[in-house]
């Protein structure tokens, strides 16, 4: 029973982290129609900035704020070369960017600890929260953040700002003709989404009390994509449901692992392959996902 409960806590923590991560993508892709295939890079940037600054003596709260600013700022900058061009270019630029961030994390050992990763940074309210309940505290922290992010985003997408974003997604030229600065809106959407990804990365680092480059494989980005598309693009509630379903799938199939006559490694790889297949099948047969509105699709 105890073990089951601990397992449920772990899964719910991960659901919360991926919900935050995917909410960020939903702003970019769902509402603004921007293809970001390098979302995981901002997770890495946020987490590494926080950890590295903290290990060099910066207090954790300040390190978190700087980390969020760096993640958001880099996100906004990244849109510069591609934002005026066709959507596909942004896809390529972001894929490349996220791979390069991962190479840097892997190779600049003096800064990032290389493949061995970094540990020993301070955790929020460490010492105040009893260690045996720390996971529960993290759970509360993450789901509190999810709730706040969800409410803020809901208000934001219903505001004039959100409507402009949607109009850009539907037809950029119309938005431009109505006097909206399209590039600025796109950049703001990217900034906001990257900040959320950065925060999710920090929470993942806090939960593991460790970071290493292997947390930032491209597959993480596509987990966020499957969450958003499965739940329904441009639907924040759908994104939360998608995150829950992803982890029900990922952890549920883990229980099957002892029954299936495959090594853990092979099984895990096939599970990730299934995520790719699911993405293709969804796009073919139900591109609006569970809660999405077919009329609101960019594709």
């Amino acid at each position, binding site marked *: 029973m105890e073990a089951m409960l601990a397992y449920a806590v772990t899964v719910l923590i991960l659901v919360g982290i991926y919900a935050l991560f995917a909410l960020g993508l939903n702003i970019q892709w769902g509402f603004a129609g921007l*293809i970001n295939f390098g979302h995981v890079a901002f997770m890495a940037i946020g987490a590494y900035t926080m950890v590295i600054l903290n290990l060099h003596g910066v207090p954790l709260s300040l390190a978190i704020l700087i980390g969020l600013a760096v993640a958001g700022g880099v996100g906004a900058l990244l849109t510069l070369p591609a934002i005026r061009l066709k959507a596909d270019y942004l896809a*390529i630029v972001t894929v490349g960017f996220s791979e390069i961030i991962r190479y840097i994390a892997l190779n600049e050992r003096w800064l990032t600890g290389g493949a061995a990763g970094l540990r020993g940074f301070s955790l929020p309210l460490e010492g105040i929260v009893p260690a045996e309940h720390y996971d529960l505290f993290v759970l509360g922290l993450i789901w509190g953040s999810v709730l706040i992010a969800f409410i803020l985003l809901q208000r934001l997408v219903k505001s004039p700002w959100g409507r402009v974003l949607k109009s850009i997604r539907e037809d950029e030229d119309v938005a431009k003709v109505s006097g909206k600065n399209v590039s600025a809106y796109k950049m703001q959407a990217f900034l906001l989404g990257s900040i959320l990804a950065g925060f999710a990365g920090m929470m993942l680092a806090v939960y593991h009390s460790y970071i290493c480059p292997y947390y930032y494989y491209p597959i993480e980005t596509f987990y966020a994509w499957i969450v958003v598309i499965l739940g329904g693009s441009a639907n924040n509630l759908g994104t939360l449901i998608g995150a829950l379903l992803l982890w029900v799938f990922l952890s549920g199939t883990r229980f099957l692992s002892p029954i299936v006559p495959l090594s853990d490694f092979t099984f895990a790889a096939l599970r990730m392959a*299934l995520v790719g297949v699911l*993405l293709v099948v969804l796009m073919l047969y139900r591109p609006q996902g569970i809660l999405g509105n077919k009329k609101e699709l960019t594709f």
Partner: protein
Amino acid sequence: MLTGVTSGCVIALGAIGLTLTYGILRFANLSHGDLVTVFAYIGLWCHRLFHNVFLAGVATIIGGSLVGLGLEKVVWRPMRERGASSVAMVIVSVGLAIAARHVLIAIAGPRLHFYKISPRIFQLGDVRISSVQILVVAAAVVAMLFVYYILQRTKLGKAMRATSDEPALAKVSGIDVNRVINWMWIMGMGLAGLAGFLYGLYTSLRPDMGFYLLLPMFAAVIVGGIGNPYGAMLGGLLIGIVQDMSLIFLPSQYKVAVGFAAMIIVLVFRPRGIMGRAI
């Protein structure tokens, strides 16, 4: 320099398929790198089976063409018939990339793989050339001449160029667009098969190297000008040489980042590339 030309040839071969897809179907096919990886492994397994480089190479090209045609029937044509936009195509291509990559990881395991051939080394003055390098460059040149012949001298090639320039016009002038697209996949993916096979000849393979291969190929496509196969060849060579030169002042892990930087610079200052039309 010579290693740059060798890898440039492989990048160019991969980039031709990519740029044809972009020209005719109007979307960035992000599964291309992972499919080249799959073909590299097919080449590896064929080579173990036949113990003959030429047989294995031909088998891989045929395998690549069949995979290309199969995906067209199962995925791309149904997507087009649904009226999917290019954005939807890009997302589907990434789903394919993820699926192909992880199936390959499941089969091949995470280790590095080699073809285990020992090339002969020729000494020409100060330059050392291995037989593998000669083979790669020769095969690439033959393949590119073949592409040139198809595109410029055959009816199919004319139809392909017409479809790439103006799809609607091509359709009304009686070109069977679906047939053109079939042949585009056969040609592009056959070349991708050859690229994967040649890549495996001179370096080690990893099942998760798809994006690592895709980035220089995309850089080549964009530098050369999107949709232009000759631009892709030239771009591929350029990217290969630039990446190789960067080894003088950067560790090899960042080779791909250099090609990527070249692409960003072209995107910012001359988005239509060297030989592309205005966009």
